């Protein structure tokens, strides 16, 4: 009974631990000492103020995309489109912020939040609509929407909105009024260079919102019902199609909110290819976090710490590169996806 109760926490933990073991074997094979490697890893991501700051910084977009994927999952839909949705959200936010230059922060920042959510939402809602209307599979369609998004934002940043006088593929900077504070602005003794910003708090707030909506309201009740069984929901008079579209819209919206962290809080511009797969890692975060906001925060922190730690591998070890983290991420997912193995080991029957 004890094990069953804590299965939710235990299984992901075992998966992570097992992945670190596999990683250790790999490290030994390439001729380094795993303990030394992991020490460097976690010293720089968890055991210093700066390290923690960066871990949280890297975790922030993952929380948004993790929520995005999880929200779709809860409605039975597999949102592979977080990457495209976050690009569209970020581009739209950047352009609107520039366009509204001269407005006060009190107007500009809320508008930017809404635009980020709305455009990400539309990008997610379209596959939702295609699914509801024509039964088009959301996996295929979100991937297609990714492709369109990549091409579209790339065109915009290379062409019409490219900042003049630079080789870097970026748009103009957004006005000061649209920028949200970094930790340094709030706690002055934190170094100014630390890019951790208010976006992290927004991400945590979104986790609370998701929790409340999904488990405390009639709308969340319907979304989860549709996720468990379309036919039971239909028999209960629930509008399955509308819930699907809504869920995909909201899922896309969370991805769009990556713009808050990236554009409003970090770079203040749309930087080409800024995401580096944050939308896809969000799938892993949702999976590891069991599609629950608390789990997503924890999983995002883990992946954030891995990201941060990886930067120090190249510096400290001749035979290792930061790609080790990708291996670790991959193995974690593999173990999470095949948790039957561990269930057997700790004696849980399905």
């Amino acid at each position: 009974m004890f094990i069953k109760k804590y299965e939710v926490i235990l299984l992901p933990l075992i998966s992570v631990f097992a992945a670190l073991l596999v990683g250790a074997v790999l490290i030994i094979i390439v001729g380094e000492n795993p303990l030394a490697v992991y020490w460097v890893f976690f010293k720089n991501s968890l055991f210093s103020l700066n390290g923690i700051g960066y871990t949280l910084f890297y975790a922030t977009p993952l929380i948004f995309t993790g929520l995005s994927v999880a929200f779709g999952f809860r409605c039975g839909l597999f949102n592979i489109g977080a990457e495209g949705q976050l690009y569209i959200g970020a581009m739209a936010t950047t352009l609107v912020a520039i366009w509204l230059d001269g407005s006060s922060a009190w107007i500009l920042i809320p508008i930017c939040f809404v635009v980020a959510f709305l455009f990400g939402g539309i990008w997610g809602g379209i596959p939702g609509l295609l699914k509801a209307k024509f039964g088009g599979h959301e996996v295929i369609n979100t991937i297609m929407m990714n492709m369109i998004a990549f091409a579209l934002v790339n065109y915009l940043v290379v062409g019409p909105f490219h900042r003049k006088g630079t080789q870097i593929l970026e748009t103009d900077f957004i006005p000061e009024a649209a920028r949200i504070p970094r930790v340094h602005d709030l706690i002055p003794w934190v170094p100014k260079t630390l890019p951790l910003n208010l976006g992290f708090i927004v991400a945590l707030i979104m986790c609370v919102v998701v929790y409340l909506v999904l488990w405390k309201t009639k709308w969340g009740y319907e979304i989860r019902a549709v996720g468990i069984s379309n036919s039971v929901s239909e028999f209960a008079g629930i509008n399955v199609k509308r819930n699907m579209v809504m869920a995909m819209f909201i899922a896309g919206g969370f991805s769009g909110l990556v713009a808050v962290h990236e554009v409003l809080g970090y770079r203040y511009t749309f930087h080409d290819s800024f995401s580096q797969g944050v939308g896809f890692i969000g799938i892993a975060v949702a999976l590891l976090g069991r599609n629950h906001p608390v789990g997503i925060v924890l999983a995002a922190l883990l992946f954030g710490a891995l990201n941060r730690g990886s930067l120090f591998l190249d510096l400290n070890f001749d035979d290792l590169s930061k790609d080790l983290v990708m291996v670790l991420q991959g193995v974690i997912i593999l173990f999470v996806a095949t948790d039957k193995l561990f269930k057997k080991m700790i004696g849980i029957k399905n």
Partner: protein
Amino acid sequence: MIAVRLKSISKRFGTVLANDSIDIDIQANKIHALVGENGAGKSTIMEILYGFYQADSGEIELNGKNVKITDPHVAIANGIGMVHQHFMLIPPMTVTENIILGVENPKKGGVLQLAKAEKKIQELSDEYGLQIDPKTKVETLSVGLEQRVEILKALYRKVDILILDEPTAVLTPLEVKEFFQILKKLKEQGKTIIIITHKLDEVLEISDEVTVMRNGKKIGHMPTNEATAEILANMMVGREVLLRVNKDKVDPGETVLKVNNLCINQDKKSIIKDVSFEIKEGEVLGVAGVEGNGQTELIEALTGLRKADSGTVLYKNKDITNMSARKIKEEKISHVPANRKAHGFLPSYSNADNQILGFHYLPQFCNKTGFFDFDAIESYSLKLVKEFDIRPPITNLPTSSLSGGNQQKLVVSREFSQNPKLLIIAQPTRGVDIGAIEFIHQQILDLRKKKIAILLVSAELEEIRSLSDRTIVMFEGEIAGEVNSDDFEIKKVGMMMTGKKL
């Protein structure tokens, strides 16, 4: 001679003792019925014999020899076969392909020897009078014939002892007759048959011996000729059972539902043709018919799950044709679906959550901002759980953990408790034990007394007979006939079900 001897078999699932030191002797070449309510442990002990589960303690003797049956392959190798309640067939494959699956045994360079297998299956089919063509695709077969394919599958594997789990649950009255013929033939040819069931009339008709189980214990064992339905029912439930409900006279009131010339087409085929009927307050209208003759589609049209192509549905003189499912619910029309698992409840939702399903948005359960009032839900659920005797009476337990009978009571509790004016009920007691059947029937009659109009679709003619005031019989999407409760004869209705006009 004793073919199988089960010696003090015990099996525990978590906190539930599913089998408590069970001893059963199965005589060779006899039909042995294993009866008991759902959750009595009769399927469990047979799954143990079939090697699907391992007993925690106890021994199995086959023909006097101790055997360890570690998985179904071992069981089959020892001549034990089992036909499950849910068939395990692949529809697009032929009968032969399905039967040889897993024992293909190709000799010549990996090439399947289909013709040889076909011949053997044909011989087996002829020998036992199964009338199965090995070359037909399974998807074209009726449920009754699919069952025969399952039996052939066991025979092909040279099984001597055949376990059948609730074999008649899916069959029509006529198919049951034919099925019993097959069982007799199997017995003649020397097979030993164990049949798990809770239909007492069938036990009395077909079996030689009967063992009764209750709450994981063996309650009794007797030759069938010493048993009566009353004795068995009382042993199963552990108290006196009313096998027949008492129906008071209720004077029907105003017409509640009036269906006029309803037609539904699908893939250019007409599946509901010109169906018209009406139901008055306090009246139970039974709908009899072999499954797949339009009953499902009729209900779906009435409850907003399917569009009608022509005709009208009038509810209290209001046209509700093709309204949405939610709108129809809001008119106080409740629906207990035929398949509770597929349509009735969400397995991972708690009992409380399932008891508000479809009504969850009402102000009774959530405030204007959309947030649930969990106290209200909890007390509502607690009230229903008590009123409908749902066990265990725990509101936050996932519904998947309840037995079939209690799951059905849960669905019934939800649909009966929102003051319906019209109740549409399909197969209310399918796969439900005697105690729950009695309870649900009583609830239906209570609502009838409260002047509620009821449409009852059931494959159990006995159920329709005991509950309805009038009965319409459906055949190929049409109403083949109508009988009053006074002149309801199972035989006559059975004839109408096969399309024979009287």
